[in-house]
């Protein structure tokens, strides 16, 4: 009995167990070699001027300074922030508004709607790009529709237009992310206690008061998740740009994710490419931390 108790105590869960290292080791080895180490190298490369072939020279923070001074490097970051309106702000706003309208109803056939609304999330971005390229083409569905309803004067080559290419790519992002937000918020509203709505009604709250005092606070956690997911997806957005516009026309749709590829593998500015990659990482971390602080109101 004592032996059993000893053994039990010695091997109880949560006790220090050196064998844990063995279980973690294989994953950590691969993860270290193919993720942590390359990230460290990216930071190192970003401090160099290197064309990928000849000897690299020390650049210090020169590549980072360029991000602020060189217009061709500043533009991609500005574009990325504009795209966040389409990728994150708009889908979350639409999702919240619709959730407010639908919050008081137990939806029948929810599985069907959820499956369909969420569908864009599982399609390869390459496929999404191909589909939307044909819709936005000069003879595509969008222009055909505009002509059919008598708005023929608005038609244009959406992805080839200096002013319209960025919003057009953004609209594709809105299409991808809105369903995700709706699914999240619908699930969230179904968890808000009905009594809160009834109490608000009894207090004579109108639809708008009800939204701000019941629905919105009830969806805090969901809003944080939605913003985090859409911001990260929006900033990582390489495939869609590559397929639809390749950053063009000119560099009017260039984004940091695309600029990393373009500089490293097309124009041999490896150090600069690495700096853009690291800066993008910093931006993603900063924005996701800000979101969880602001929206979830997490202390420290």
């Amino acid at each position, binding site marked *: 009995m004592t032996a059993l108790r000893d053994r039990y105590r010695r091997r109880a869960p949560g006790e220090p167990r050196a064998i844990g290292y063995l279980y973690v080791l294989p994953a950590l080895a691969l*993860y270290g070699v193919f993720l942590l180490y390359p990230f460290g190298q990216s930071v190192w490369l970003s401090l160099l001027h290197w064309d990928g072939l000849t000897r690299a020279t020390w650049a210090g923070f020169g590549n980072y300074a360029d991000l602020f001074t060189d217009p061709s490097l500043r533009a991609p970051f500005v574009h990325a922030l504009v795209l966040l309106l389409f990728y994150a702000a708009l889908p979350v706003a639409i999702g919240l508004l619709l959730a407010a*309208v639908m919050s008081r109803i137990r939806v029948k056939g929810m599985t069907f709607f959820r499956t369909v609304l969420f569908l864009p999330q599982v399609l390869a971005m390459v496929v999404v790009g191909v589909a939307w390229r044909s819709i936005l083409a000069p003879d595509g569905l969008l222009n055909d529709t505009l002509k059919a309803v008598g708005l023929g004067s608005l038609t244009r080559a959406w992805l080839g237009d200096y002013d319209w290419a960025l919003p057009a790519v953004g609209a594709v992002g809105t299409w991808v992310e809105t*369903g995700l937000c709706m699914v999240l918020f619908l699930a969230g509203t179904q968890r808000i206690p009905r009594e809160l709505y009834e109490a608000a009604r009894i207090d004579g709250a109108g639809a708008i008061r009800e939204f701000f005092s019941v629905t919105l606070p009830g969806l805090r956690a969901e809003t944080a998740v939605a913003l985090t*997911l859409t911001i990260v997806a929006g900033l990582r957005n390489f*495939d869609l740009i590559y397929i639809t516009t390749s950053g063009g026309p000119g560099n009017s749709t260039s984004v940091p994710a695309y600029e990393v590829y373009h500089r490293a593998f097309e124009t041999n500015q490896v150090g600069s490419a690495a700096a853009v990659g690291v800066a993008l990482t910093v931006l993603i971390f900063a924005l996701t931390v800000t979101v969880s602080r602001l929206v979830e109101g997490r202390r420290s």
Partner: protein
Amino acid sequence: MISRTERGATYAILTLFAVISLTPVIGILSTAFGRQGALGTGFSLPEGGLHWGNFADAWTRGHFATYLSNSLLVTLVVVVVTAVLAILAGYAFGVMSFPGSTVLFYLFVIGLTLPQEALVVPLYFDLRYVELTDTYWALILPQIAQSLAFGVFWLRAYFRGSARSVIEAARLDGASTWTTLWWILVPMGRPAITTMIVITFMWTWNEFLMALVMISNESLRTVPLGLAFFQGQHTAETSLLAAASVLIALPVVVVYVALQRRFIEGILTGAVKE
């Protein structure tokens, strides 16, 4: 309490957004089954019935048979290796404690938000240096590493929540940590593990940037890479392009429809971290 109009409005909104979600998908489908060289942009029933020939053409002329088998091989290896390694590590992080375990776990969590763009440049030069670019390894190894971040994070949560009493009972019966894991916890954790597997499957199958950078040999292209090049070369052949798109999307969509709960759960929880 709830008025008729409100109910009607709810369903109208849901239906409208469902239609918006589906429009591009239906466009691709109708183009894929349309007549080759047809100038319409789809959205009408294809003339003269469904043209399955586009798929045969994409399969042979577009080399999608090769691309699909490449994708299948890469995805299978990545999913299996990631699953095994993530189960082992998630188990250790979830039920054992050892010095440094918290720090090590946070190293994995960092990978959830680290963008590929911050890795791909040095990875390319490293793998070229050891002559692994233009091999399956260049696709497999980095993608295992990237999937492990989610896998370890996700499975640690499962093992943490798994019943302490079960683990203790197994231990009292003399089961080793290894036996407890594979004979008790893994079979019990099938839902959590399935979620991890379908998410890794989707990410790997849809992966584009790594393939674009690492692969220049045409016979090693994966399906997304194949589609990108196909688009570049055959811009005018919209029905072939659409058929190829359907071939790429279909495997993921089929698994998604069958296991949509797992997909949604996995995608949404990727963001929930401390």
